[in-house]
C-alpha cells in the first residue's frame, strides 16, 4: 500500500502536469524552435537558409544602429519604471489606508481604462495630443501658445501613452502588498522612537518589496513588449526593439527577427533578475 504522504506527492505532481505540459508544448518548444531559426542564414524563398551561423547575433550586437535601438528600449523602460514606481507607490500608499470596501472599488476603477483596447486608447491620445487636439486647443484658448505644439510622435507621447496602461499594474501590486502589512509593525516602530521616514524606509518599504518587485517586473516586461502604443504615438523615430522585430518579419527576414526576439528576451531576463532580488521583506527591522 502506498503511504499517504507519497500518494499526496503524486497527486500534487498530477495536478501540476497539465500546466507543465502546456508550458512545455506551447512555450518552451516554440522558443527552442525560434532559437534554432535565429541560428540560420536568411533564405529568399524559405523560412530560413540551410547554413548555421551566428551572423544574425553578430549583426545586431556589433552594429551601432541596433545598439542605439537597444539603448532607446532600455531608456524607455527605465523612464516608465521610474515614473510608475514613484506615482504608483504614492497612490498605492493612500489607497491601502482606506477601508477594504472603498479600496476594492478604487482598484476596480483603476482597471476601467484597461477594458478599452490599446488601439482605441492610442487613437484617443492622438485626438488629445494632435495639432487640433484637446491640449493644443486649450493652450491656444488660454493664449499660452501661438501655434499648435507638436506633442505627438515622440518619446514623451509614448511615455504618457504607456503610463496610462501600465500604472494600474504597479498600483495594484503595491496596494496588495501594503494592505497585507500588519499596521502594528509601523505603530511599534513609531512608539520606539522612529520618525515617519525611518519607519517607512526600515519597515513599510521592505515589507512591501514583494509587491514593488512584482509591479516593477510587470511594468518592465509589458513596456519591452509594447508595440501598438509605441507605433501609433511614437512613429518610426521612436522605434524600439519590438518594432525592429516586426520590420524584419515584414521583409521576411525570419532569422533576423528571431535573433532580435532573443536579444529582447535576454534583456528582459537580465533586468528581471536584479528586480526579483529587490524582494527583501526580511530586511525589515521587525520587533522579534
Amino acid at each position, binding site marked *: 500500500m502506498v503511504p499517504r504522504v507519497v500518494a499526496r506527492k503524486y497527486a500534487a505532481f498530477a495536478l501540476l502536469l497539465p500546466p507543465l505540459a502546456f508550458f512545455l508544448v506551447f512555450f518552451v518548444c516554440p522558443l527552442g524552435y525560434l532559437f534554432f531559426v535565429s541560428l540560420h542564414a*536568411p533564405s*529568399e*524563398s524559405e*523560412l530560413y537558409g540551410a547554413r548555421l551561423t551566428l551572423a544574425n547575433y553578430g549583426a545586431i550586437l556589433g552594429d551601432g*544602429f541596433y545598439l*542605439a*535601438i537597444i539603448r*532607446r528600449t532600455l531608456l524607455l523602460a527605465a523612464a516608465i519604471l521610474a515614473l510608475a514606481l514613484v506615482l504608483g507607490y504614492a497612490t498605492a500608499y493612500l489607497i491601502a489606508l482606506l477601508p477594504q470596501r472603498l479600496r476594492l472599488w478604487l482598484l476596480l476603477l483603476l482597471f476601467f481604462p484597461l477594458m478599452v483596447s490599446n488601439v482605441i486608447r492610442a487613437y484617443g491620445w492622438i485626438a488629445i495630443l*494632435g*495639432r*487640433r487636439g484637446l491640449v493644443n486647443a486649450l493652450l491656444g484658448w488660454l493664449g499660452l501658445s501661438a501655434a499648435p505644439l*507638436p506633442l*505627438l*510622435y515622440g518619446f514623451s507621447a509614448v511615455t504618457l501613452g504607456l503610463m496610462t496602461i501600465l500604472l494600474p499594474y504597479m498600483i495594484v501590486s503595491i496596494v496588495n502588498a501594503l494592505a497585507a502589512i500588519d499596521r502594528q509593525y509601523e505603530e511599534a516602530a513609531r512608539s520606539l522612537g522612529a520618525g515617519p521616514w525611518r519607519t517607512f524606509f526600515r519597515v513599510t518599504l521592505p515589507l512591501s518589496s514583494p509587491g514593488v518587485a512584482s509591479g516593477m517586473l510587470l511594468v518592465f516586461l509589458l513596456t519591452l513588449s509594447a508595440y501598438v502604443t509605441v*507605433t501609433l504615438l511614437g*512613429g*518610426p*523615430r*521612436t*522605434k524600439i526593439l519590438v*518594432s*525592429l522585430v*516586426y*520590420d*524584419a*518579419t*515584414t*521583409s*521576411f*527576414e525570419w532569422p533576423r527577427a528571431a535573433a532580435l526576439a532573443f536579444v529582447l528576451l535576454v534583456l528582459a531576463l537580465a533586468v528581471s533578475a536584479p528586480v526579483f532580488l529587490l524582494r527583501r521583506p526580511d530586511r525589515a527591522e521587525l520587533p522579534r
Partner: protein
Amino acid sequence: MRRRSFLKSAALAGAAALPLARAGFAADKPAEIVVMTWGGLWGNALKDGVDAAIEAASGIKVLQDRGASPVERITKLKINLDHQTFDAFQLHDGLWPLAVKEGVVEPIDPASPRLGNLKNVYPRFIHSHWVAQIFSAIGITYNTKLVKTPPAAFADLWRPEFKGRIVLPDITHSIGPDIIAIGALAAGKDAKDADAGFEMLKRMVGQQPIWVKDTDSIMNAFRDEEAVIGLLYTSQTFTVQGWGTPVKWVFPAEGAIAISWGTGIAKNTKNKDWAEVYLNLTLDAKTQPFFTKAFNYPGTNKGSLAELPPELQARVRYSDDELKRLVELDQSFMADHRAEWTDRWNRIVAAG
C-alpha cells in the same frame, strides 16, 4: 434579403452563370472558399459584389479573412503550404513579387475556361500569378486652404514651408518603399537609383514628416490638419474631400506612380477551380463598379466604366496623357531590395 440586394445578386448571378455552365471542375464543390483580403469598405465592396455573385451562382459561401495585413497574408499562406486553408488572396502590385518569390501563389492559366473575363481586361493588368481588378495613381494631395503655393511635382514635398506638416507612408506600409523611388524621381534620377532616393530620404527626415503605417492614417492626418501635404492615391483624396476637408490631388510633373490591386490563387488550394471562378468574378464588368463606387478606383475590365453613372465615370477616368505619364515601378526590383531598403530606411529615419 432586401429587394434591391436580391436584384443585384440576381444580375450578378446571371453574369457568373454562363462561364460556370461551360467550365469543367476537377474537384467537388466546396461549401465555402476562404479569401484573404482587406477589411472596411474594401471587404464590404468585395462581399456585396464578388462574394454575392459566386454565392448566387453556385451556392458557395465566401469566408473573408480580413485580419491579416498584406505582408502577413503572405506569411499565413507560407505556413499553411502543406495544408492550405486559403483559396484566394488579394494584394497590391508591390507585394506580388514577394508572394511569387515565397512560393505562395499559383500561376495564372490564361487558357482556363473559368477565366473568361481575362479577354476583357487591359493586358497591362494581367500578370503571371495575379490579375489586377482596380487601379489608381499615387500623387500629391494637399490642403488648398493651408497651402499658399500649390505643389506641382514630387520635389515640392521637400519645400521648407512644409516642415512638420508632411504625411508619408512608413517603410512597412504597402507603398512604403515607393518613397525611395519617388525621392529618386524628385532628384531628377531614374526611379531605380536607390542611392539618389536615400539621399532624398535623408533630406526628408530634416523636414520632420509624419510617418504612418496605413492609408487610413494618411487620410486622418489630412482631416485633422496634422498634415497639409503628403502622398496619397487619387481615389482616397476624393474620400477626404467627402469628409469636408479642402484637399486636392495633383498629378506630379515627374509622373504619378501607378498602383493596382488584385487577386491571386493560394498555392496548394484544395479548391483551385473555384478560386479561378472567384478570381474571374473580380474581373467582371458588373462587380468592379462596387469598388469604384466605394473608392473611386477605375476597374481593369474594359467594360466596367460603362456600368457607372456618367459623373462617376468622369471622376475616375484618367486622360490618355495621364495614362501615358503613369510611372510603372519595377516591382520585382523593389521586392528584391525590400529587406535591404527597410534596413537602410530604419537607419536613416529610426536612428534618431
